[in-house]
């Protein structure tokens, strides 16, 4: 976001590098990476400033910032004159515009001529201005080229002006700078490194600042980073204790003006979440961390004032550094087409060579046979004449290169993207969110998707998390089989902080809690209220929670409802009201969550004095860290299993009492390792964390429900019918994933799950490539030979996927197996593995892959896939920002793919095929004509016709086709998802189709030349009449072809076809009029040809014959297709007459056993919950597919 707002590169909206560690995990649990809370004052060894500086330099901290010494920095400011640059520190001015009035023309031309097509045509213009080879005048090519260049230039200029405006606005934003002991209002552009700033509440931070102190206690301050990572929750930043205590106790302005610390830190870089540095002040050295830094682009919230010293400004700031250029994704069609264009260029070159040889032979004949041509052979040298003729033919055949194609392509893509943005059916009212095509060049790829790789949480499910069940000390509370809406709310009126939102009935638990009978329950809730990174914001006498992940919010919220109310946190303590009793816990350490650790812990000192470590995390990591003989472990594991089968997300909660001595020892080591400024610090810290999180005692398990989004089963069923392979990649447990797979119709009840051991066996068979099929049919898949492939799904987990790294040869084998299966579920995968799976699919199948996800953990796979779709959901907007398309709901995918994608694919393919046909068919006549004019590169058209043919006579109808064509209406497209397979099979864009279009063009050019040739051979008709006849026939053929292609005639199509034909006659009359001839006899030398030709029936008859003969194959093919059309095809066309229910289609496929359960106790309706299988249903499933990998294994 900020990239666009502050810099404004329209194409660089994403962050270049993914964050070094993930902020959130959508699955798996509590989240938010918060830097080590307990790391505070850590002094470096050296005392003298010089010695310290030297040490800083050694550790790579070479960026020196002296507070309050503007003169020091201005001398070293970055300046440039022409190409010379010097200085070190950038100023705080954003210059994202590229052009100035002086540089616009050269720069835009330079940029545009980097396109090969434009360069090629520039070369043509240059060639054409060489008189000896110029077969057509130079202005003929320069007209289309100029149109294209100026359209493009105008577009660039307009966006540059917009950037310039926004730059100006940003650069002149106000801020308070400390100048000579008082804060003055200044503009952002006047800011320098080392300046001390005062930031007000809700102000945007103008540069990367080192936080010195703030108006809040402990110099905490809160920032919103929505513009950087899209997360709307508040994060806290905190000043060093030293600066806090020294700078806030006395009147601020004087002390701040006297502040003379020197910051040593890394050179400017793009790592948004890492900062390494030292502050040298008053002879002491303080370590600086990310938590001391306020990044440019973030907004100060909930804090009256914050004071900071500018460390990086302008182009040096982290956000500006991370605004890299987004990798450009190209569509398969475009790549294929580029190859075809290259092929055309090669063919043109080859043809020109052959024709040049012909010219040489002819010239030597002309030289040896005295006649009117003999003196015309250049220098009397046939070889030289042939060489020159080569260039002439390159020029003459250059119209076969579709120059206008690329610009038309861009326009069409933009219009298709607009149609996506405009679609009301993809607009989600509750969030006021229309669909967004963020990348406007991938539209036709939407119509060819073969693999859909979907995230689960937030994509298939709503990510509106509800605390539904928990298990404390082996006892399960709550019942998840009752729909959340139908839960009878518990009476929580005794709790003044209760605000509702708890969908769990467990009076027993309440009794236990309020009666304080069970220490385990108390511990459990205490853990929930302490172990998190949620911020509490006070509104109307009640805390409002700001959580980085919805899981945490649900957990802390549930604890609040049950009486354990998290009230506030400071750096040093967490305040909790336990059943009305306010208790303050001293926060000693916060061991943060990462996607690798998958757990978080807090170490607190209880008011009574004891040290407790509370942990929560994924079962897999918590269970392996338990003390031996933990009570209730068995019961809790059973609960875990049953929760997972009910599609609930689980987290284990554990506690450990830490002896004082061990804490002291540990914190000392921690302090030392944290002070290390080297790269292996992180590994060391992790090891230390690991040491602390041991010998845990399991208290219980939380179970959170994440409900399926509306329309997910229907959408998946529809997409499966459309021939898409839907894979689910999730960080969740295998059971949860499998259950969601069943509930969203990805798997049928009789689907056989093949797990790792079985799969491994197949992969390890001596000749996996060949023996798949056999293996499937003989031993392993013997159950049902026919349906074996169709009714099978593979289930993999992250660690198992990792084995693929060691055995790359398995990839191909795996994919060919997966190709025959219904689906593949990958559970427990990390974000990196998600991307690896996408890459695997991309590598081993030629299919187009689409990734869809909603969280930061999906960014990798969204970027890796051919097409990335982001769901604008609860988890920030990271996914959306990196996606090519953004949707509000998963179910909109059906419309995006089956309607927009299919249409786009068809429209763009037809457009490309037609473009190929019309340019080549029209240009190639010169090859045949060459045989009858001594290979002299004589043009068979009036030069104006060549110029206007592409631009005026044939451009508009095909654009209309590319905008409006619909072979089946939106409703029909959704009703017959099978139609989508056209795109997957590349039926309209395969090399074969393109080549056949080229062949057809060759045929057309033959007809266009030889029919008039036959008519005019040995007659008194002159060259110009023949030229006009061929031109007329070429134009009519192109028009006939577009008429045949257009199946959806809007008024625009009709008008453009008529206008194009009209324009031909009008322009022909104009360029051949006496009026223009009298002004420039040389350029309008076709004067009077149309006067004579258009009244001659022979001309019309010849043109008509040529047109019809040229169009005959196309007409015949169309007619044959109509005659052979299957009945269902007819049904598609007449779809509107038989309105049928979409849902009926997928329901038909569902077996009676499951469908009978669907309207079960939970009731019918569009309720999503009803399709989630219950526990005993799972047993039935397991009988069908005995689980080779037991639950214990997966845990």
């Amino acid at each position: 976001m900020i990239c666009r707002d502050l810099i404004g590169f329209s194409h660089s909206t994403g962050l270049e590098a993914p964050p070094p560690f993930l902020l959130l995990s959508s699955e798996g649990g509590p989240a938010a990476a918060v830097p080590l809370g307990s790391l505070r004052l850590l002094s470096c060894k050296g005392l003298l400033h010089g010695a310290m500086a030297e040490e800083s330099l050694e550790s790579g901290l070479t960026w020196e910032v002296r507070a309050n010494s503007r003169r020091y920095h201005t001398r070293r400011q970055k300046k440039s004159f022409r190409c010379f640059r010097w200085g070190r520190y950038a100023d705080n001015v954003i210059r994202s515009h590229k052009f100035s009035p002086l540089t616009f023309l050269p720069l835009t031309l330079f940029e545009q001529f980097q396109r090969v097509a434009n360069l090629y045509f520039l070369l043509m213009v240059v060639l054409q201005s060489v008189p000896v080879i110029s077969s057509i005048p130079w202005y003929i090519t320069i007209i289309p080229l100029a149109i294209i260049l100026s359209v493009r230039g105008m577009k660039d200029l307009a966006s540059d002006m917009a950037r310039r405006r926004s730059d100006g606005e940003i650069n002149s934003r106000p801020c308070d700078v400390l100048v000579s002991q008082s804060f003055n209002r200044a503009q952002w552009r006047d800011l320098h490194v080392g300046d001390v700033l005062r930031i007000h509440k809700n102000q945007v931070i103008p540069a990367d600042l080192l936080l010195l102190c703030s108006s809040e206690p402990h110099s905490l301050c809160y920032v919103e980073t929505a513009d950087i990572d899209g997360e709307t929750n508040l994060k806290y930043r905190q000043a060093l204790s030293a600066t806090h205590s020294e700078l806030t106790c006395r009147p601020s302005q004087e002390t701040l003006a006297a502040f003379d610390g020197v910051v040593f830190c890394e050179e400017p870089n793009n790592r948004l979440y890492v900062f390494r540095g030292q502050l040298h002040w008053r002879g002491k050295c303080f370590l600086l961390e990310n938590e001391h830094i306020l990044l440019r682009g973030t907004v100060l919230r909930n804090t009256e004032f914050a004071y900071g010293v500018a460390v990086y400004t302008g182009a040096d700031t982290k956000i500006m550094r991370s605004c890299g250029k987004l990798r450009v994704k190209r569509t398969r069609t475009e790549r294929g087409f580029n190859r075809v264009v290259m092929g055309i260029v090669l063919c043109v070159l080859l043809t020109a060579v052959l024709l040049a040889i012909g010219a040489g032979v002819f010239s030597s004949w002309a030289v040896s046979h005295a006649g009117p041509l003999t003196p015309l052979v250049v220098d009397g040298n046939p070889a030289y004449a042939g060489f020159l003729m080569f260039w002439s033919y390159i020029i003459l055949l250059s119209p076969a290169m579709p120059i206008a194609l690329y610009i038309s392509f861009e326009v069409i893509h933009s219009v298709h993207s607009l149609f996506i943005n405009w679609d009301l059916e993809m607009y989600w009212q509750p969030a006021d969110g229309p669909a967004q095509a963020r990348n406007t060049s991938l539209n036709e790829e939407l119509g060819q998707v073969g693999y859909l790789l979907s995230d689960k949480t937030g994509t298939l499910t709503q990510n509106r998390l509800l605390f539904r069940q928990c298990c404390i000390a082996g006892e399960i509370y709550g019942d998840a089989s009752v729909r959340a809406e139908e839960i009878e709310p518990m009476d929580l009126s005794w709790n003044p902080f209760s605000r509702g939102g708890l969908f769990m009935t467990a009076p027993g638990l309440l009794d236990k809690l309020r009666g304080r009978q069970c220490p385990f329950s108390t511990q459990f809730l205490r853990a929930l209220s302490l172990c998190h990174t949620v911020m509490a914001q006070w509104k109307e006498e009640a805390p409002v929670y700001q959580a980085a992940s919805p899981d945490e919010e649900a957990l802390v919220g549930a604890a609040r409802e049950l009486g354990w109310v998290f009230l506030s946190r400071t750096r040093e303590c967490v305040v909790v009201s336990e059943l009305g009793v306010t208790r303050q816990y001293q926060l000693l350490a916060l061991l943060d969550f990462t996607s690798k650790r998958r757990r978080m812990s807090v170490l607190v000192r209880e008011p009574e004095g004891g040290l407790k470590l509370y942990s929560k995390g994924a079962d897999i990591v918590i269970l392996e860290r338990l003390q031996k003989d933990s009570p209730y472990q068995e019961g809790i594991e059973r609960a875990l299993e049953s929760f997972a089968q009910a599609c609930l997300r689980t987290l284990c909660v554990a506690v450990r009492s830490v002896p004082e001595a061990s804490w002291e020892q540990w914190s000392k080591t921690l302090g030392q390792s944290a002070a290390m400024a080297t790269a292996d610090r992180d590994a060391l810290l992790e090891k230390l964390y690991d040491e602390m999180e041991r010998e845990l005692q399991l208290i219980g398990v939380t179970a959170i429900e994440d409900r399926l989004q509306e329309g997910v089963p229907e959408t998946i069923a529809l997409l499966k019918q459309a021939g898409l392979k839907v894979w689910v990649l999730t960080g969740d447990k295998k059971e949860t994933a499998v259950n969601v797979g069943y509930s969203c119709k990805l798997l049928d009840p009789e689907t056989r799950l093949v797990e790792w051991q079985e799969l491994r066996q197949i992969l390890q068979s001596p000749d996996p490539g060949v023996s798949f099929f056999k293996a499937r049919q003989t031993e392993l898949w013997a159950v049902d030979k026919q349906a074996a492939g169709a009714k099978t799904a593979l289930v993999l987990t992250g660690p198992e996927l990792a084995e693929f790294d060691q055995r790359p040869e398995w990839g191909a084998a795996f994919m060919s197996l997966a190709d025959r299966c219904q689906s593949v579920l990958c559970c427990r995968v990390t974000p990196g593995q998600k991307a690896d799976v996408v890459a695997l699919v991309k590598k081993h199948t030629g299919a187009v892959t689409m990734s869809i996800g909603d969280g930061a953990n999906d960014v990798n796979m969204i970027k890796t896939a051919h097409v990335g779709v982001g769901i604008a959901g609860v988890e920030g907007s990271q996914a959306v920002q990196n996606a090519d398309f953004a949707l509000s709901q998963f179910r909109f995918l059906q419309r995006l793919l089956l309607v927009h994608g299919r249409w786009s694919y068809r429209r763009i393919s037809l457009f490309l095929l037609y473009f190929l046909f019309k340019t080549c068919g029209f240009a190639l006549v010169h090859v045949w004509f060459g045989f009858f004019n001594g290979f002299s590169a004589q043009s068979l058209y009036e030069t104006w016709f060549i110029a206007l043919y592409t631009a005026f006579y044939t451009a508009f109808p095909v654009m209309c086709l590319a905008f409006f064509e619909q072979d089946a209406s939106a409703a029909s497209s959704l009703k017959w998802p099978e139609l989508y397979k056209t795109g997957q099979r590349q039926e309209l864009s395969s090399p074969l189709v393109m080549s056949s279009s080229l062949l057809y063009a060759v045929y057309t050019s033959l007809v266009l030349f030889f029919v008039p040739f036959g008519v005019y051979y040995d007659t008194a008709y002159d060259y110009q009449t023949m030229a006009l006849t061929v031109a007329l026939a070429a134009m009519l053929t192109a028009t006939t072809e577009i008429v045949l292609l257009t199946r959806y005639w809007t008024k625009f199509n009709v008008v453009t076809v008529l206008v194009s034909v009209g324009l031909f006659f009008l322009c022909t009359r104009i360029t051949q009029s006496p009026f223009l001839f009298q002004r420039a006899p040389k350029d309008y030398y076709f004067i009077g040809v149309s006067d004579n030709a258009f009244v001659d029936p022979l001309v019309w008859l010849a043109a008509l014959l040529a047109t019809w003969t040229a169009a005959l194959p196309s007409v015949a093919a169309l007619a044959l297709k109509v005659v052979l059309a299957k009945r269902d095809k007819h049904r598609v066309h007449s779809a509107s007459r038989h309105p049928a229910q979409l849902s009926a289609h997928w329901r038909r496929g569902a077996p009676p056993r499951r469908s009978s359960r669907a309207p079960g106790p939970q009731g019918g309706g569009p309720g999503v919950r009803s399709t989630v299988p219950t526990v005993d249903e799972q047993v039935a499933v397991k009988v069908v597919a005995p689980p080779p990998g037991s639950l214990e294994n997966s845990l």
Partner: protein
Amino acid sequence: MLKEAQDHANRPDNTAFTQQRLPAWQPMLSAGIVIPGFVLIGLAFIGIGVALFVTSKSIQELEIDYTGFEKDSACYKCSDQKPVTCLCQLNFTVESLLKGPVFFYYGLSNYFQNYRRYTVSKDDDQLYGNLDNFKSPSSTCSPYEYNRTNVPIVPCGSIANSKFNDTFKLYQKVNATMKPVPFDGKGIAWWTDYNIKYRNPNIIPLRNAFNGTTQPISWPSPAYELDTGNPSNNGFINQDFLVWMRTAALPDFRKLYRRITEGDYAQGLPAGSYMLDIEYNYNVLSFDGRKKVVFSNVSWMGGKNDFLGIAYLVVGSMCIFMSIVMLIVYAKFKFPEED
């Protein structure tokens, strides 16, 4: 109300255009339309083809090669490339009345008048009567811009230089006397060429305009002496010159020389013996060319043209054939599915 509008600020417009629901005509093709359509088009083409073929057959045409390539040819003696003017007589008989008006063409073969460097070798400005281009002809005329002594050539260029300069006189042998057949040389060039594209300079007498210029190298006389008797057929607007300057499309071509429309021959050439008196100047044998004369009458479709009629018949028959194939395919593959 306002609040609601704000809530849905991003709501797309509900118009036929944005929702891609523009009213449109979707032609529903079926075998019932396609097959009869093909038959109809085929029949139409066959009809046109028959009409063209019949018309073409009704056109009488008499074509005589007079290159003098064969030894027994009348003009054999002239074909030995002597620069001296050579006269030869071509005797032929008309079997039956060649209905008038009769057009008299000369035809050249293997003559690449469409060679690019040849077709551009003229100066349109000069031919439009621009006196500046008399002094300095356009470079496109090269190598016939200037003569050896650097005097500008007018009209410059290859086309003008290679102007066809054989002349013909036709006599009918009536009772051993030679009765001249009158030729009509008016209006054989295009109206636009004669009136607009080519123009003599507005200088009277015309020859003064040509001061300081020279005639094309192979011309016996300058342009202002092409038809000294008739100022409206002299200089650049000489009909023969205009006809020659309108370059041919293909290497085998004809050009209209005269029409026979006057006197006793207004109704055509009666059957009988004729003698064509040829002043043989133009050498084509050096580049394997051929020369011929053609007497032909014309119809609504111009001269004789068998190709077009046959082509229409072939394409028409193909359409009919395809419709039959389609009918068979339809009957064979379609009906079993209908149930």
